[in-house]
């Protein structure tokens, strides 16, 4: 009973605040002025305040994240779960960075970031190319369909067309056309689909049909 009441209350709050924010954002700063008992209230200002509260609440979730990080990895170390050594490294690194930040040694943090984090990430980004080539090979081996052939051909044209060789200038032109017309059109189509689905999902949340936030 209490759970249902809580759920209904959460839904009512979401619908109420959601509708209010959407309406005031659509009305804008000038159109959002209302007069109640001789006083002028600007809905836009209230919306700004609500949005600032949201930003602050979201910023607080970083604390939840840090708690989650330590809780998960301390448990893994305690249980000697697979890869627990990596968890030890993670806990020590995270604790060291926090301590360095608290004692005001951001310069050491910067050195750690530049020498360790960036180097490791650069190495990983180099691996992505091999993973992609292997992915294309695997796709052709798994199922030779028209779309798979088209995908691989487009990949080859884009890769070979990037080479600075005068003998394949026609391929470079074809690559430029491919990127400007069919690829761009396809990308816009996907983005339009995502945008429409975003609108529909947002409206469903606003009218309480979607309750992903509920327990």
């Amino acid at each position, binding site marked *: 009973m209490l759970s249902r009441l809580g759920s209904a209350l959460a839904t009512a709050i979401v619908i109420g605040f959601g509708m209010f924010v959407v309406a005031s954002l659509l009305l804008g700063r000038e159109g959002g002025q209302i007069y109640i008992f001789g006083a002028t209230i600007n809905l836009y200002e209230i919306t700004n305040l609500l949005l600032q509260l949201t930003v602050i609440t979201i910023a607080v979730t970083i604390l939840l994240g840090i708690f989650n990080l330590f809780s998960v990895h301390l448990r893994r170390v305690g249980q000697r779960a697979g*890869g627990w050594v990596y968890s030890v490294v993670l806990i020590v690194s995270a604790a060291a960075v926090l301590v360095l930040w608290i004692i005001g040694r951001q310069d050491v943090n910067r050195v750690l970031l530049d020498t360790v984090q960036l180097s490791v990430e650069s190495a990983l980004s180099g691996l*992505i190319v091999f993973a992609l080539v292997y992915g294309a090979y695997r796709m052709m081996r798994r199922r030779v369909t028209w779309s798979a052939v088209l995908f691989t051909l487009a990949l080859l044209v884009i890769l070979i067309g990037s080479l600075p060789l005068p003998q394949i200038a026609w391929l470079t032109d074809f690559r430029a056309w491919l990127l400007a017309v069919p690829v761009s059109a396809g990308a816009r189509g996907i983005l339009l689909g995502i945008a429409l689905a975003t609108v529909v999902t947002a409206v469903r949340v606003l009218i309480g*049909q979607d309750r*992903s936030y509920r327990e």
Partner: protein
Amino acid sequence: MESTTQVLTTLIILFTLVCSVIVTQFIRRRSTSFPMRAIPAYDSIPMMTGAAVEAGRPIHVSLGSTGLGGSSTPLTLASAELFYQVTTRNLSGSTVLTLSDPSALPVAYGTLRHAYATRRERLGNSTVRWYPNGERSLSFAAALTGVLGDDKVSGNVLVGSFGPEIALVLEAATRRRQSSIAGSADLDGQAVAYGMADQVLIGEELFVAGAYLGGSATQRGSIVTLDLLRWLLILAILIAAANSLREPVIQALTQAGGG
């Protein structure tokens, strides 16, 4: 906001609102109306969860870098719905949820607590895992490859926002013979997922998990609304194209008639 944009946005929101309500009522009365096309990625989820339960291994689901408070909020909620559906089908097994945006943590916990409502003991403290990173950071992908190996997961559902770094995760999944379903709102990540995942979700397919796996009238109503909006957009594009072609065609015809 510019006045034309204001009017258009208001019209789109009102149209979506009215359509959602009307279509939902219509589907409630006639549930067989509006058949949905098959999406292989959603069709494969019962198989994936069945294999995980049989093997006694967890399913790994990941939101990537989506979170709350920005333009990716609806995507976060839609992905949470998918993860809820996957988890409820895998109640005998376990689920590991990873994410990199801390703002999505409350949604992740809420989704799994709701899914495990009847079996709260299965919701462990390590079920939701936050791996901090920046936008498009490779450290998150590296952490996920570790999860795939350390937890010996059975299958992966990566739906949210991922960049090309998703290639590392999918490659690790393939190497370990783990099934994968992937989809990303980021186009680079989407292209990589298309080439490397077993099943892929493209564009608006990311948002319709509730309708395909939940199947309630309201969720199916959203698909019909989405289709109506899509057809209206196509119509608008065609009209705009015809309008922009009108002048040159008339000029060409006039010149041809004069010549």
